[in-house]
């Protein structure tokens, strides 16, 4: 899906937990997430901390969308 949307002319950031799958399917901008059942959260945290974690991940995704890439890139930091 990532690849097909990008093929239509839109930059896509793929937020996912199993990065090797994302690399195999051909996403160009990849942001690794927390865990398979809760990629953008963590039930072990209190709600405020969890939201902050999510905010950081989304900010990272926005940064990825604003970064020029020439090849598949995993945004880890």
């Amino acid at each position: 899906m990532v690849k097909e949307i990008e093929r239509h002319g839109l930059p896509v950031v793929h937020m996912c937990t199993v990065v090797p799958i994302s690399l195999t399917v051909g996403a160009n901008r990849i942001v690794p997430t927390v865990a398979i059942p809760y990629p953008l959260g963590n039930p072990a945290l209190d709600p405020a901390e969890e939201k902050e974690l999510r905010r950081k991940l989304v900010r990272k995704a926005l940064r990825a969308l604003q970064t020029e890439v020439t090849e598949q890139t995993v945004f880890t930091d």
Partner: protein
Amino acid sequence: MSKFRIVHYINQFYAGIGGEDKADVQPEKRDGIVGPGMAFRGALADVAEIVGTVFCGDNYMNDHSEEACATVLEMIRSYQPDLVLVGPAFNAGRYGMACGMVAKMVDENLHIPVVGGIYEENPGADMYRRYAYFVPTTNAASGMRKAVPEMAAMVKKVLAGEEIRDGYLKKGLRQNYFAEERGSKRAVDMLLKKINGEEFVTEYPMPVFDRVEPQPAIKDITKARIALVSSGGPVPKGNPDHIESSSASKFGKYCLKDIDDFTPENGQTAHGGYDPVYANQDLDRVLPLDVVKEMVRDGEIGSLHDYWYATVGNGTAVASAKKFAAAIAEQLLADHVDGVILTST
């Protein structure tokens, strides 16, 4: 002659430990057969014996792959096997990846053959096919009865040291063989067929890389229009479009104008194959709507497309996913969206 020794790698589900709620279990080993190994016993009886079974939760294997693989490798090594059997994983993505990772570890460290079973579209197949003789299976576990004899036959061939040319997903390795006719003759024959418009089969197929060039970056996100898409199955409570929990045949389009935060009352996941409890408690964990809305309000993001799009990635055919994405992209372009956040579970 003593029988060959086989170690079987399976996941927590086939080991009878549990489903998604147990997908975090760490690697364990058991002497002898566990689960599907039983079906292989008859088929392998005269040649080989499953001396040990190693299993691990699929989430644990994928989330802690380095550490989990190292442990699994030591457990396998402890049985001094002649061959390692993995799966069959069918189209279970994480299980397929796990089988592939195990195959790679065994191939590179123990230098013994690995035989597995996997559906061709499983992401693990593409990534790890070169490390094992992966017999192609159906996409669902209902194909077990067909997969077992085929995998067992492959095990026997490999153990017998036979030359194996087909019956598995090509590893992409070159094999030497003696051809009847010399290369120049074969090349000219092929050329003549091509000129005559006849069918011919190349001896050296070019790899197909279906890659898409990265689109240019968004210059200023505070002026950009963003859309949210997910293959993790985030849908309004009740799953109004009845998106299937696996092998989805459709995607949904849902208005997000009136939702600022997901709660157990307004959202859920339609996705099967992972524990839905966390997503159903708070769907923001799959589709980060709450923070995205706040960021739009605070000016961190220019604007948000009024709908989110969701399907279920679990076992869904690549062709279907492509079709959904093309339809979604058309709608996004019509609304002048500049960039997409796509989440997966």
